[in-house]
């Protein structure tokens, strides 16, 4: 285990927004997607001047420092599922401290490659990026970051085969999902179709008691070139409210809108 390492961009000792309760959030360096509206775009490349590699022991030392004030840890990023062995090892150790272990994911992973990581994860915060052809333009283009992407994927299995929706279904069947998120941006997918798809999936797992967050995309805090790319694509507050109403009409019980 001592040999396993994880590239980390930053650690937030106390975070209240990455899962229930007070948690230590670890943002890994490296992502397999490149979403135009990414607010942590510095974590997308495989390497970054501010990132450093931690051994699992080093991470546990950092986490232990924040106890007993946290109920768990959340690995976000970047994309945590790119590092299944290291994250699993981290979770196994964190569990011995009585902490719950969460992953914040974009859903772009191969189930069979991360099976044992899923087993070691208490809950996923699942960011559904969208559906259909233009998901490629939104999340898998080489715009802005053309080089040094972490394990770039073509995205075909997601854009054409909706594999991220099947991944969600699988995690729900294991009762491993706490929250589903949709960042609402116009022009890259049919938002009602995405909501309907989510509704269809969670309908089969009523006991999962999943929370849906609909978040309006915003340009605050984006790098200038990214802010430019989403110009004219930000929905109005009314449009967000309408989408929330639509989700309710699809019998999704627990919804929160974030403007």
């Amino acid at each position: 285990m001592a040999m396993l390492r994880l590239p980390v961009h930053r650690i937030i000792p106390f975070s209240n927004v990455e899962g229930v309760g007070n948690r230590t959030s670890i943002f890994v360096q490296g992502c397999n997607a490149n979403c135009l509206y990414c607010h942590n775009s510095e974590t997308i490349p495989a390497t970054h001047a501010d990132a450093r590699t931690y051994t699992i022991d080093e991470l546990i030392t950092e986490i232990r420092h924040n106890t007993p004030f946290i109920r768990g840890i959340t690995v976000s990023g970047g994309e945590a599922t790119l590092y299944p062995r290291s994250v699993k090892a981290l979770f196994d150790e964190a569990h011995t401290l009585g902490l719950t272990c969460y992953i914040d994911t974009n859903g772009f992973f191969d189930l069979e490659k991360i099976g044992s990581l899923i087993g070691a994860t208490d809950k996923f915060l699942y960011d559904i990026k969208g559906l259909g052809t233009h998901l490629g333009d939104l999340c898998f283009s080489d715009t802005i970051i053309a080089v040094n992407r972490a394990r770039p994927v073509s995205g075909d299995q997601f854009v054409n085969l909706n594999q991220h929706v099947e991944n969600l279904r699988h995690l729900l069947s294991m009762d491993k999902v706490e929250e589903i998120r949709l960042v609402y941006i116009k022009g890259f997918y049919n938002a009602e179709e995405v909501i309907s798809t989510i509704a269809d999936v969670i309908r089969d797992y009523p006991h999962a008691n999943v929370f849906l967050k609909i978040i309006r995309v915003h340009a605050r805090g984006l790098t200038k070139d990214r802010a430019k790319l989403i110009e004219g694509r930000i929905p109005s507050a009314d449009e967000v409210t309408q989408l929330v109403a639509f989700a309710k009409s699809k019998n999704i019980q627990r919804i929160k809108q974030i403007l």
Partner: protein
Amino acid sequence: MQSNIQDIMDTVTSKTLTYQQKLFTLANISERLLSPIDILGYTPQELEHINNNMICDLNEGYAAYRPRYIVPDYNVYIKNGCRFLELPPPQNLDECLDGLLILYSHVPSITSFPVFIGNLDTLLDPFIENAETDYIKIKRFLNHIDKKITDSFCHADIGPYETLAGKLILQAVIELENPTPNMTLHYDPDKTSVEFARLAAKSCLLVSKPSFSNVQYYNRDIGEHALCSCYNALPLAGGGYTLSRLRLGTVAKAANSTNELINNVLPKVANIMLSIMDKRNTFIVEKSNFFETSFLVKEGFIHRTNFTSMFGIIGLADAVNRMLSLEGLDETFGTSERGDEIGHKIMETLETMVNAHPGKYVERTNDRYLLHAQVGASLHDEDNYNTPAHRIRVGQEPTLVDHLKQSAQFHKYFPSGTGDLFAFDQTYVDHLDAILDIVQGSFDSGYRYITPYLKNTDLIRVTGYLVKKSEVERATNGEAVLRDTTWFGKGTNEVADVFDRKLRE
């Protein structure tokens, strides 16, 4: 400190005090016109240590005629009514609220306002019949208290169990945004429901109350108790005769090494303060006739045998900072390991002395006085060199997690109360479980009492009591304002920048 004739004229002609504030101030001045050497038998050396500001008696009068803090058991009224006030036992919520308001006017204290107004939720809950209409009554009752008891050292307790009355009280408190009453939730995760704790956390963020008290911890130390005034934990149906405070920052100036402080200066001054406390307690019990005349005693609201006294300290940070500097270290209390060591040495010295001293008329607390982490005040220029309690100076705070751990080490020394405050950002209002995790973590680390509040609210906890920032602004502009505590808030803010405590993100 003794007063003089000029104090009377200054008060009478003041442009900033209300009529009522002048009346109470004049009464206090008259208590201090007489020499404590004559009345209380202070030695010249004892008086000298008040005059040199090492010991602050918080301007408690020398002609003392009531205990400083009185903690009535208001259940006596619910059960028996009050013969002296010709009140029968209340039969419904209206009678109960009315009777309590009448009682409050007759509960003395050092400020002449009641510092404890009861475990409000358990008092009111049996009378609640209709959440909607009773909410209006409770809200009116609480607003009456704020406008009538113009001193936010007035304290109400709630919990640990969830009740409908408790929920209505918290709703009203959030809606009213009043400084008074100050409020504490007796929090016990085994007894307090998560839902009620969340509501309390939300209220605390929005209007800086209730604070969370570690009820299991206080029960172990002093048994049945109430939180009153700022955060003083005192026996129920009793109270505290007196609270003097050692200005540790001032005391430390007289020492030129840590050894000299611990082995010489500190024991000398602490013994002087213990003797002063003995003399005050003795006068109140033996000479003032308070316990012979008060209907509260006769009817069983309080018992003489349930009183104790508080040995207060302030300025631990400043004392430690001076010692660090004398030791040639470029470090400050809060982020210095050596600083923590010195802090513990100071507190262990005081704890040993206080626990070795048989106090007067304090059988309820094993004949011992109780250490108290006093929240500070601005009574003299020396208060500029004395940070409240054992707190870290504002501006020298470490990160939140380090701050929690550093402060937690010192809570154990203060069975009659201490607490710390942390300013959080708006996102926590939507994530109350995160606040509860921090509260629980603080208790698990040794905390007795914690207040998580929002940085940007008008109602703010200065050091242990609440003021409105907008009212402080009016006071600063020379206007008379309703609440006397606003003046304390103004002074403390000027000395300790407490409105600018580090934001926790």
